[in-house]
């Protein structure tokens, strides 16, 4: 069956995220000043044809490792929707 998989890719916790930093500055300029940190990543959805949820997750994991996330810079989380 087809599994819907959502993947969150985020910059590694300890890495500088210039985009998040600039956006936080922008929010401050707008007067929204209680936000302490902004980090910006990617949200990816996949539809995977697989025999089981585990198999679909394994495929998603493989896709993340090989292409969707850059392990030097990013970590990812996989969420199975169905």
């Amino acid at each position, binding site marked *: 069956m087809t599994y819907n998989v959502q993947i969150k890719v985020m910059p590694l916790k300890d890495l500088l995220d*210039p*985009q998040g930093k*600039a*956006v936080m*500055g*922008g929010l401050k*300029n*707008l007067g929204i000043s209680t936000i302490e940190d902004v980090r*910006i990543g990617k949200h990816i959805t996949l539809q995977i044809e697989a025999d089981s949820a585990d198999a679909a997750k394994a495929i998603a994991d493989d896709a993340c490792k090989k292409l969707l996330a850059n392990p030097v810079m990013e970590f990812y989380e996989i969420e199975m929707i169905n």
Partner: protein
Amino acid sequence: MKFGIVVFPGSNCDRDMQDALQNDLNKEVIMLWHKDEDLSMFTTDDYIVLPGGFSFGDYLRCGAIARFSPMMQSVIAFANKGGKVLGVCNGFQVLCESGLLPGTLLPNGNQQFVCKNVYIKNDSLPKALKIPIAHGDGRYYADDKVLNELEANNQIIFRYTDEFGNLDLSANPNGAIRNIAGICNKERTVFGMMPHPERATTPNLGNLDGVEVFRLFGMN
């Protein structure tokens, strides 16, 4: 006619615009800091220019943060009064984000930054003009309703063409819809374009077609 050039943090064509207007077109230019608000020295006969660059790093979306600068609030008010505004490249993106011009600029079709000479034309020009582009997010997009309106009101001020002025998909450097390189508002007071006319106004650079672009905006 005076010119005010808005400097955002990350603007990097502000000085080039100043050089072009001041030295090549002999205009009076006032540089405007994004944190200031005062535009009282300008009348609606004058021009405010939003230069190219990467305002606020172009993070989130190009122009999205710059649009909220104090000076931009004054520029929006100035434009709404009928004052003339030109946005080039990042300036065009800021104008779209701020709603002074319709549509938006998406990442280039091939997802790569592109810098080269391109040719642009409109019906009032006898031949295509050679003007440089340099952008990563230059793919103009709007829905059909907006596009048809732009066409009906003759608001598309430049389209990408080949060097002979033929509308040609292969001459479109970024996948812009209907080869759109620049547009204006219905009142023809606010102009935005991706190509950089200020990079083509100096004899030593071997291209003066930018002077023609400024002439079309009534700037010389």
